[in-house]
């Protein structure tokens, strides 16, 4: 990498920069959702965009998730490139019908006549004491559904670049922004732009064990890898980035090399993404493993409010470290 200029920024600012760029570059693009305009976005992502682009393109909506998500689908069918913001994945359950029954099905059901180029952004995840109706990680529900693409930016580069690629995609794309990441600071290449939305990424190379994660858990997992390095355990950390499709090739290449794997998923264990990934590894790399795969997931409870209880419910660096130690101590 040459010495390209970098700027200090945050995850939130990177998202906003990507929105601004999309609005500047394509007259078909517009943003709508609850409080995206005058309020500036419930997580302040769209702050200032109303002033810059006007209320025709930065549309505050009523609290009508089904109507405005469906309107995004319809507008996409009508030639626009809507970006629809839903405050949290919990609220998206109010428009599950439109996303699952319409956006995901239309192309196939119409024999390929209609595609739905809509981008839906929503926050997910816990860690800010928002309790059980604002903290869940239900992205695996969407990753279950053929016809949808599901991505989870965990880095500044992906916060900056995934939207552009999602907008260029002819099919519905859901972007999950982890609410604990909005304030994450770092340096971002001045030329940062579109990134692929299909491949997982190795965020840290290692040879003893593979840690597979995404979204808000990436940073906890990287800290766990730092700690493990002091114990002479070199963990390879994979950031899934795309939850549908899953990048089996990157996962399997790493697992076949390290022969051990721990999956870190803020979703619940039962029926979750970690189960899917674990089974894919079992199907395709069973004989390459030196130990049973393990998981660190959220406890099977609605996420509680009290700080110590919330922390206990979520994957944490210490539990990841401990789980890795246990897997390293096992042999089959």
């Amino acid at each position: 990498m040459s010495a390209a200029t970098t700027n200090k920024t945050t995850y939130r600012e990177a998202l906003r920069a990507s929105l601004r760029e999309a609005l500047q570059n394509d007259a078909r693009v517009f943003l709508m959702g609850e409080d995206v305009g005058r309020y500036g976005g419930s997580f302040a992502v769209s702050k200032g965009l109303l002033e810059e682009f006007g209320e025709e393109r930065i549309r505050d909506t009523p609290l009508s998730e089904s109507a405005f998500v469906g309107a995004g689908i319809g507008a996409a069918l009508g030639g626009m490139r809507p970006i629809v913001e839903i405050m949290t994945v919990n609220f998206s359950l109010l428009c599950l019908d439109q996303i699952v029954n319409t956006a995901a099905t239309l192309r196939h059901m119409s024999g390929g006549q209609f595609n739905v180029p809509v981008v839906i952004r929503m926050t997910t995840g816990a860690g800010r004491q928002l309790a059980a109706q604002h903290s869940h990680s239900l992205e695996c529900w969407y990753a279950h559904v053929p016809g949808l693409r599901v991505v989870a930016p965990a880095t500044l580069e992906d916060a900056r670049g995934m939207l552009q690629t999602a907008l260029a995609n002819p099919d519905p794309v859901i972007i999950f922004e982890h609410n604990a990441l909005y304030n994450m600071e770092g340096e971002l290449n001045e030329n940062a732009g579109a990134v692929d939305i299909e491949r997982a990424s190795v965020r840290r190379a290692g040879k003893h064990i593979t840690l597979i994660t995404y979204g808000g858990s990436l940073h906890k997992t990287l800290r766990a890898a730092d700690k493990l390095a002091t114990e002479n355990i070199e963990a390879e950390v994979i950031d899934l980035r795309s939850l549908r499709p899953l990048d089996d090739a990157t996962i399997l290449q790493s697992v076949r090399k390290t022969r051990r794997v721990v999956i870190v998923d803020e979703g619940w264990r039962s029926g979750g993404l970690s189960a899917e990934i674990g089974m894919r590894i079992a199907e395709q790399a069973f004989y390459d493993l030196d130990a049973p795969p393990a998981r660190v997931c959220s406890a099977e409870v609605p996420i509680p409010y009290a700080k110590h209880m919330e922390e206990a419910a979520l994957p944490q660096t210490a539990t990841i470290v401990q789980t890795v130690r246990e897997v390293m101590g096992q042999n089959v």
Partner: protein
Amino acid sequence: MSGTAIDKNLPAREQAIAWLQQMIRIRRFEEKCAQLYGATKIRGFLHLYSGEEAIAVGVMSALKNTDAVVATYREHGQALARGIAMPSILAEMYGKQEGCCHGRGGSMHLFDAATRFFGGNAIVGGGLPIAVGLALADKMQKRTNVTACFFGEGAVAEGEFHESLNLAALWKLPVLFLCENNLYAMGTALTRSESQTDIHQKAQSYNIPAEVVDGMDVMAVEAAVRTALDAIRSGAGPRFLELRTYRFRAHSMFDPELYRSKDEVEAWKARCPIATFSAKLLAANLITQNDIAAFEKIADDEINAAVAYAEAGTWESVATLTRDVYTEMTA
């Protein structure tokens, strides 16, 4: 309707005959579909439009080609009247790849890009938000198209109905909401599901001009739709028509019709939109009985040709099962 008085509002002969022929065509198509279902040529759910033909015919007659249509799972009449070719509709119901959706959709999911026909939506109420979005796209792109959105009175109980009416009115979007009130949501009577059964009042509560129209009268439907479309195209925002009608057949082919009386069905059948309109045209000497027989023959010939087309159709290769789940990207 005595059938003898001449209706002064009758359209020109050519137009009147076109409407009558279209209604006859839909009715006979639907009756053939019932037979084909019995013969197991059509499977799944099959919802027939018999009795409600005046609505689809009146609406489509007033729409422009550039307008959009969002319909429900009882949409054969809309699809035919909109101009989707009958053979491709029937082949779709057979599940053949010659069907308008290659057999992926079936009776409940007819789609056609060429006529801007956006389903065939089988989630009650689910089509309304899509119609709002299509209208939003037209408005933002400064086109004068209207989106005609069909739904039954059962949809009125869904949240999506209320959310969509509010949003369309708030943003003054060019949507024509068309509530086909046939009094029963499957087997649940309107009076057993709504605290306020005068549906058009619900639209008025969202500041959408709304009126009740006799859905058994093609002239009344067409006139009301034309007036509403003019208002919408002038930028006045959405309009709402409650079209009071009745389905002569069961909800679907699995329905034993335990919830309504034969007397009630017969009373509505006496108001058959085809019979009453035919009587008006006969009284005005615009057509003869021989003409009606000829229209039926023309419809039957077309239907027979469509059946032959569907029968001769082929099954899509299973190898293409996962095609069109996503758009194929050419690098």
